[in-house]
């Protein structure tokens, strides 16, 4: 219970304002532009854009819009465990597909 009170108040302590989120939105739109730009250059660039910029955009949404930045460690661990699990599923599946 005490833990709960702590974390609840910790969360309430710092509310970011409108400005932060608008800046993040601008960044997201710019990144989308870059992604489109890269895909126009060549297929290779498009794939690199997919592998780098897309996770970055998703990370921004998670970190700011979904308030992960303002939460304790637990939620970050939950997200990382999930992504890690998916990554391992992916790798093990490709141990079959890529070497068949």
């Amino acid at each position, binding site marked *: 219970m005490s833990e709960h009170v702590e974390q609840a108040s910790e969360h309430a302590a710092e509310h970011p304002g409108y400005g932060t989120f608008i800046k993040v*939105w601008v960044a997201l739109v710019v990144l989308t532009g870059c*992604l489109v730009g890269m895909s126009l250059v060549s297929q290779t660039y498009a794939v690199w854009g*997919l592998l780098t910029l897309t996770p970055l955009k*998703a990370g921004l949404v998670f970190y700011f*819009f979904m308030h992960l930045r303002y939460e304790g460690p637990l939620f970050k661990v939950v997200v990382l465990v999930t992504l890690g699990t998916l990554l391992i599923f992916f790798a093990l599946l490709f141990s079959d597909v890529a070497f068949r």
Partner: protein
Amino acid sequence: MSGHLHRDDFGSRLGMWLFLVTEMVLFGGLFIAYSYMRYRYPGEFHHGGSELNVTLGVINTVVLLTSSLTVVLAIVAVQRAEKRRAMTFLGTTLVLGLTFLVIKSFEWGAKFHHGLYPNSPHLATLPPGEQVFFGLYFTMTGLHGLHVVAGLSVLGVMLWWVATDRIRQDRYIHLENGGLYWHLVDVIWIFLLPLFYLAA
């Protein structure tokens, strides 16, 4: 009944995040299927991707990103007890979400018009890899569309609750959780855009 005597906002958010975990893994399964098939049919996926309308895809991305922004701004507004502003922001989100669906339906309509839909006679004449590409395209964007509809319904209720003061400065956990869901829908689209429209 009992148990509601104390309020556990952190617990509610934890529950919501755990639900989002299941959503991430659900789409994760589809992404895994996508990469498996793409690995097998790189050329066909490229060709299939070139038939999609990049402009509409990008416009839809910006629409969804903006709708995410307005949700998060609505939370800020509620925290500052600016009820009218919060309602405006949420209303904007709803409009943008609907816009997304309308654009999406135009896109699907065009595909159907060209004889590109699952099991269509035209599709059957294409190489196998492209059939799989369009199968995945319709499955993934369709499932995402269903999530958009679900998210819009949830946010519609949130708007109603803000209007009737069930969501207010000292009690906005439902709005936060609804917002979390909406952002996840946005994140999934962030991945769908390059997978189908840009880098395929």
